[in-house]
């Protein structure tokens, strides 16, 4: 397919007008900011601290708040908001230096800012003044002392801890069931308090962050190679997406453009990761509804994808294949040939499993109307990924912010509006088909032997992004004079997509639906905890 046709297709399925390079520029001007160009496709604007919240809140009403984080600015601290918009492939970074350890909260006007601000409060000791629920987000069993991510003097972890798993709601007939942090079966550690009245699941209070490893802090003053190994280890099942987003950020900061073959190979790897992630997610969802055979069938497929990935890259999860400037080594040719031959079979088996699932009433009935997240709610969380797309949030970084070689691919974005567990499952199923189509397109031309471009690393900063299996994955890096990492901010999709989880749980469900709800979100804890 030619580039133009692909562009037209993505235009047809995308929102708004494509090619209008100035939408973010106009947005910044409309709130009185003066945007100037940063790395390619990026706009930067500075804003005084007192007007920061107002300016960002006014812009976020018609755009997406993609990230909000704190950084050290010289001796003091500063805030940065990243905004994006339908119809503009770029990003707008608005930063404000802070004169004191507090800032006006955006949350009363932009709900999506809530978790970002709670994180800033506990990790950097900066108080979001006016935040309606400023409890800790990830640091539950942590002394109030020096904030763990802060490198400049001052600040403290807020004294008020997060929700206590022992007691949230009291009343006759109310049963509270603490779940975790040690869960049953081989799965990640996380805490949830399930509150039930009889059969009903009244509410769920997530208590996440047990696995906080301070990944970004560990990379400070390190080389980008070390940073890349850490990015790949934020989460195992999104190693390629996080590594790639990090590499993109470094490449964009240093002006390095990977060779075309490497860009196509990156698309291929990104899609293989989506495949094994979604297959694993469907396997767990099927198990949650008691469909053992379906769970086993999806697990067999996942294992096959991992084996191909292992042969292609040398690592089952693709760790170590991405390098700054392209790929560390060319993809294995024999494995590429195998991949081309198994694709039709994967598609056939995937369709057969889907037909069977859709025909199995015990599966469909348990998912339908379970944990509904209505489109207007999903929008208020500025949601990303399959969870967002199942609630009508039409965002996909592969189409909206094309990276690697996605501009040459046809990317149709599956969408649903029901917002229930069934819609989430159907989006995953659609995306599997879609991924197979993209792999087919990317196979052509990705066995190029020239896979890495050289470049000098120097001072600079940029964002990098990918569409990870669970949504838009955004990284921001600042390099110092020697090309080492001064600041790295990782915002994997789970940071956004876990936010509405409690909301969806409270949509009138049965207690016994809980495993289905959690499996239908298919989110990583490691990505959020970092």
């Amino acid at each position: 397919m030619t580039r133009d046709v692909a562009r037209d297709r993505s235009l047809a399925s995308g929102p708004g007008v494509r090619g209008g390079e100035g939408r973010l520029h106009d947005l910044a001007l409309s709130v009185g900011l003066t945007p100037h160009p940063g790395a390619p496709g990026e706009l930067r604007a500075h804003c005084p601290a007192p007007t920061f919240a107002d300016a960002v809140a006014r812009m976020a009403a018609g755009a997406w708040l993609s990230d909000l984080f704190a950084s050290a600015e010289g001796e003091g601290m500063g805030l940065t908001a990243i905004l994006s918009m339908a119809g503009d492939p770029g990003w707008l970074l608005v930063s404000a230096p802070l004169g004191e350890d507090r800032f006006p909260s955006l949350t009363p006007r932009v709900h999506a800012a809530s978790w970002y601000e709670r994180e800033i409060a506990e990790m950097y000791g900066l108080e979001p003044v006016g935040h309606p629920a400023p409890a800790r987000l990830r640091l539950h069993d942590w002394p109030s002392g020096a904030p763990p991510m802060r490198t400049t003097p001052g600040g403290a972890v807020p004294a008020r801890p997060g929700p206590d798993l022992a007691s949230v709601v009291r009343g006759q007939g109310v049963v509270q069931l603490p779940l975790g942090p040690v869960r049953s079966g081989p799965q990640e550690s996380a805490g949830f308090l399930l509150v039930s009245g009889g059969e009903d699941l009244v509410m769920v209070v997530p208590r996440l962050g047990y696995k906080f490893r301070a990944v970004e802090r560990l990379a400070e003053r390190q080389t980008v190679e070390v940073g890349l190994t850490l990015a790949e280890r934020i989460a195992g099942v999104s190693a390629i997406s996080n590594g790639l987003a990090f590499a993109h950020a470094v490449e964009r900061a240093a002006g390095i453009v990977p060779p075309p073959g490497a860009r196509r190979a990156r698309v291929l790897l990104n899609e293989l990761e989506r495949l094994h992630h979604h297959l694993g997610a469907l396997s767990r969802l099927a198990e949650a509804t008691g469909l053992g055979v379906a769970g086993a069938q999806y697990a067999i497929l996942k294992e096959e994808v991992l084996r191909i990935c292992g042969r292609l890259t040398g690592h089952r999860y693709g760790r170590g294949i991405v390098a700054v400037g392209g790929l560390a080594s060319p993809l294995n040719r024999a494995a590429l040939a195998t991949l081309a031959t198994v694709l039709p079979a994967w598609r056939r088996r995937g369709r057969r499993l889907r037909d069977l699932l859709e025909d199995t009433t015990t599966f469909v009935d348990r998912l339908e109307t379970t944990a509904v997240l209505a489109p207007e709610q999903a929008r208020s969380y500025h949601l990303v990924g399959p969870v967002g797309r199942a609630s009508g949030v039409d965002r996909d970084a592969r189409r909206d912010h094309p990276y690697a070689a996605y501009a040459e691919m046809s990317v149709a974005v599956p969408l649903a509006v029901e917002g229930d567990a069934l819609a989430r499952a159907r989006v995953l199923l659609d995306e599997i088909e879609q991924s197979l189509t993209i792999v087919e397109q990317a196979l052509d031309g990705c066995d190029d032997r020239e896979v890495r471009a050289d470049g000098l690393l120097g001072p600079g900063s940029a964002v990098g992004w990918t569409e990870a299996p669970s949504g838009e994955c955004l990284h921001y890096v600042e390099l110092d004079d020697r090309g080492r990492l001064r600041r790295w901010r990782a915002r994997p999709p789970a940071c956004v997509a876990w936010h509405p989880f409690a909301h969806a749980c409270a949509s009138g469900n049965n207690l016994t639906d809980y495993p289905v709800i959690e499996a239908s979100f298919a989110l990583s804890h490691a990505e959020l905890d970092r």
Partner: protein
Amino acid sequence: MSRWIALGLLTGRKTSRFPDAPDLEAEAPTTVTVITSALTPELAIQGAEACPTGALVATGDGEEGGLEVDLGQCILCAGCIRAAPEAFRWGAEAETAVRRRERLRASIAWRRGRMVVAPTASAPNGGGEAVGEGRCPDDRLRRAADELHRRSRRLFGRSLHIRHIDVGSCDGCESELQLLASPSYDLSRLGLFFTPSPRHADALLVTGVVTRQMEQPLLETYRALPEPKLVVAAGVCALGGGSFAGGLATRGPLDHLLPVDVYVPGCPPPPLTLLHGLLLAVGRAEERLHILEER
């Protein structure tokens, strides 16, 4: 429902025959970094400089010095292999789990620019004087350990119930563990079972670097297992901290907090390696790790 049953039957056997027969299909392409006999002081220093986690540490200089190897910290990033491909290469053996932490270590020395003991190996972990074998010199201790393994096999050899706990993992180890229970590996055919209750468990399988907030849940879970019990540390994060060693939100290696019976290296350890580790814990497999290449 009958269509699901039919599909299950039509699928046929998908299960690996490991450990009764080697499984080339299931073998991961890279499970361990091997040090070749072409190692020179210069190559050792180059490899160590490229190592982000301290799995290779060079001391001294090209004239007088040494290389400390710790595969319990190797995240398989290929840094050393790219820096000095003559001296380091991948190994693909699935059976890399060991019973003693020392087995994952080796030290190599050079004097006046020449290797003192040629890095050749015959015994597991290299053997020879250059390797850390001499660190457990007491024969009585080794005999006691052997006796313990025999008892472990008597107790758990036919059926082992495993309680898994994630204390700070990236979900890579969990992904592989979930596949262990899938038809491709089916650990229950070997008498190994995951159990949700620590009270029913014989072994605690720990993945991830111990984070500050998971330390208490880990110790409580360990205490909840009845005696006698085994502890299996899986993945370099649990072994030495991996990429997260020395972080302000993480605790030290697992064996500083709990007695560990089996160490399974890897990032993450592939399913066959995890199986090897579990079988090793109950005395049904042997150690086969070679850090130094045989000449």
